């Protein structure tokens, strides 16, 4: 038996639909678990969850702790916080590691859990690993020492072209959130079996301080950025909000496509934040990413550089995007985008 406790993954589900991040976290957790010789436990919260616990087993969980109660039908911070904390506290000892998605759910929930346990939490990781760490702090002698098999929570460091490895071996669970699209998902195996444990959580009146009045799902036909196979993004080079008409028009030639944007276009008020790709937006990994009028600052790059094929259109031959795009055209996007649309149709349409 391993000297370490198990790894916990908090499943990310909306309306009984497991989000892609869940499978990615399970994939990463299994890799970490193999190094520690421990198991992966998933926690899933919701109502009328049906086959979801089984899906979690098929996708990498060794056991699943299910809280299936009407109070959890819609996500709220305080009810999910209560449920997650209750499950973790039902374990004999704190898990070695606990992982959440860096989604609007995980980024809302994970800090509350970490704060409750007074433990460390690293945000928006793009890689996770296990390794040793020697702490030589002079200012904090109580922490000095060598720690084995710590969580390496790896994230791009702010607006800079650096990656940082964050460690917190002093307290368990060592927690991290991970960006969607960054980790390799578990390969589904429907022959896997595992234990499913139902947990009943007792809520307190104060857990219902926030009421959900209404949940409005995206009404546009635009596919969720994260699930899109083709993303056409526009940046500051569009020159104004109307530029996104050209972006959408090019996107319309592709199946399973969505419209993205750079942060500058969002900050200029040209398109809602939900379309933002990059460090402070979404991390995406589509088959094809077309960047129109995006310079390719590091903040954008870290959100899309893992795309299968990147095509960049920019007036400025020196734009950083041409450093990492696979194909580039130097020119006016308003000329080029319609031509790309026609040419893709002509050359590739089935």
């Amino acid at each position: 038996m391993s000297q370490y406790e198990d790894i916990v993954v908090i499943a990310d589900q909306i309306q009984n639909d497991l989000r892609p991040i869940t499978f990615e976290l399970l994939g990463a957790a299994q890799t970490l678990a193999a190094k520690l010789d421990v198991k992966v436990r998933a926690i899933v919260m919701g109502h009328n969850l049906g086959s979801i616990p089984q899906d979690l087993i098929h996708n990498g969980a060794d056991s699943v702790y299910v809280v299936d109660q009407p109070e959890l039908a819609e996500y709220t911070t305080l009810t999910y916080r209560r449920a997650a904390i209750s499950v973790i506290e039902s374990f004999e000892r704190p898990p070695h590691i606990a992982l959440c998605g860096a989604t609007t759910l995980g980024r809302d929930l994970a800090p509350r859990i970490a704060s409750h346990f007074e433990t460390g939490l690293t945000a928006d990781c793009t890689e996770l690993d296990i390794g040793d760490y020697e702490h030589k702090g002079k200012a904090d002698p109580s922490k000095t020492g060598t720690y084995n098999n710590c969580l390496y929570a790896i994230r791009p460091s702010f607006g800079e072209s650096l990656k940082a490895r964050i460690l917190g071996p002093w307290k368990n669970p060592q927690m991290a959130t991970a960006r969607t699209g960054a980790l390799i998902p578990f390969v589904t195996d429907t022959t896997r079996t595992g234990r499913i444990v139902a947990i009943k959580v007792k809520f307190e009146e104060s857990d219902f301080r926030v009421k959900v009045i209404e949940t409005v799902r995206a009404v546009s036909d635009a596919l969720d950025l994260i699930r899109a196979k083709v993303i056409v993004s526009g940046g500051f080079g569009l020159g104004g909000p109307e530029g996104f008409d050209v972006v959408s028009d090019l996107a319309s030639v592709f199946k399973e496509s969505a419209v993205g944007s750079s942060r500058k276009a969002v900050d200029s008020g040209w398109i809602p934040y939900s379309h933002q790709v990059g460090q402070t937006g979404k991390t995406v990994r589509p088959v094809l990413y077309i960047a129109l009028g995006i310079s390719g600052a590091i903040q954008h790059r870290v959100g899309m550089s893992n795309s299968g094929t990147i095509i960049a259109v920019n007036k400025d031959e020196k734009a950083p995007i041409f450093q990492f795009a696979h194909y580039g055209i130097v020119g006016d996007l308003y000329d080029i985008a319609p031509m790309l649309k026609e040419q893709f149709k002509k050359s590739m349409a089935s």
Partner: protein
Amino acid sequence: MGNGYKMAVLIKQVPDTSSAAGVNPDGTVDRARAKRMINPFDKYALQKAIETRASHGGEIIVVSMGPPPAMEVLVEALEYGADAGYLLSDRRLAASDTLATAYALYKTVVYLKDVDIVFTGLQTTDGDTAQTGPQIAERLDVAQITYCETMEIVDGRIHASRIIDGGIQKLETAPPALITVANSASRLEHKKFTNVHMVKKLSRDKAEMEKRIRVVTLDDIGAEPERVGLLGSPTVVGKTWKLGEKGGSCKLFKGDKPSHEVELLVNAVASEGRGVEEFVL
């Protein structure tokens, strides 16, 4: 609502990476040389407080934690219309991670007494974690609304919308609450001349300015020094390294005839088996 709401807006001074000053060629930031600015996300938080005060009255107190230069962002917030400021400045806070920062800011909010609503930006541009707000809410044991876009108070109840993946959630709660404001919310109004003028006058009168923006230490707010800084932070940065450069592999089409270049490009994509074909309608 008679006296309106007592609001704390937590703001941070961050390096301005959009300016060339202090940004090294490799993209790293030299904090000593870099220009400084209010974390852009925090401006949306300040705007929410200004709107709330306009509708319901009350007081806006801006709070920042940082070294003495962070005073600049508090002064700027007064120009935008904040009523008062607090700067939590103490050498022992250096190297605080999000948990330790949240503890220190929580103690500051408690020190302000009877705060109804705490506003923060969704995240900062330097730390980029979005964790501190919820961590403060946990310690205050209050409701939180993160990724908030719109908000109004009706009959003492907060009605807010928050962004969720794939849509919007409309929520209702009551103060006390902590709200982190998304950068898709309404933009900060321009500085009013009267405020700018008032701050100009204040800055000539040290004693008055010190009354308006108070500098406090850990001892003043009653925070335990071993719970902040290196001692109070459960995480450390172990190692950093540069993102690998993939430069030079881009096939660049830059001829004079765009239609021809587009044709060459698309044909190159098609011939290199990149799996794009199956997604073309």
